[in-house]
């Protein structure tokens, strides 16, 4: 019986040690996954401006259709002043 009494704390310590070991592995895995996410997010975020600059050229299309100078040419003279 005395042996049994000694065995109980040893068993508890063993279980605690196993738990601590498992927890360590878990933290390591979670840590690695978090770093992967952080890296992927950083790469994706860094490329977010890739397409934005191209929009700045939209004004060129509008500029091509501007024919106000032709209207001015047509209005070069005032017939009322003849």
């Amino acid at each position, binding site marked *: 019986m005395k042996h049994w009494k000694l065995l109980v704390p040893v068993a508890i310590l063993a279980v605690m040690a196993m738990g601590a070991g498992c927890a360590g592995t878990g933290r390591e895995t979670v840590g690695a996954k978090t770093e992967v996410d952080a890296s992927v997010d950083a790469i994706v975020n860094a490329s977010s401006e890739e397409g934005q600059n191209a929009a700045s050229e939209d004004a060129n299309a509008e500029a091509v259709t501007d024919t106000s100078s032709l209207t001015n040419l047509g209005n*070069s003279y005032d017939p009322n002043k003849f």
Partner: protein
Amino acid sequence: MTRTNSRRLAVSLVSAVLMFGQALPVAFAEGTGDNFCARVTTVTGNVSTDVRKNDGEHEKKLNERDANIVKKEKDTDAKLGEVRAKEDKARTNEFSKLDKLAVTDAQKAAVSAFKASVTAAIATRRTAVNKALVDFRAGLESAKTARRASEDAMVKTFKASVDSALAKAKASCTAGADQKTVKATLMSDLQSARTKLETDRKALDGSAAMQNLVAVKKAAIEAASTAFHVSMEAARTNLKAALKATLAS
């Protein structure tokens, strides 16, 4: 006549001449057809000068527009270069972090595969964005060239019509035609020239085509972005799965 009176007379004469001189252009400008032929050379000369001046302004504006288009394209390229350099630096930095994370051969292989996937995804996206820009610029250039040819033809026709109307008015005056009729005909001819130019200008309006160019570019860039994000998520999932398996074992 005293010296004072002489001075007063001189001042009055000078004033009268000055007032007359100022009134002359107004009388010419606001003529109603009377004595039109007496000033036809001035009137036609003014019209001709104004048309050529505004034609020069039109040319200047087109040249400025073209220069601005080229400048915007160069600015876009420069900015895109900056963005990509920043992106490359960030990616290299993140790759280094992942390299340090990988300890076993299996982990190293997983990170290596991830890097290859990301590099390929970025290259694919850049190629697509470059193509979208090249296509947009080519479409714009093509439209610009076609419009320029049309505009040149319109201006040429307008100027020829104006010159013809002015020459006809002068010839009619020389031939002794009724001045009011000459003036009315000139106004009508010039109005016709103006109306034709305006009608042609409105017909030229290619806003829809230009908007389509913008929309196609935008869609291509958005599609490239979507494909990039899909590839990145796949790379993320694969790497996490690989690292989870190796780290958990």
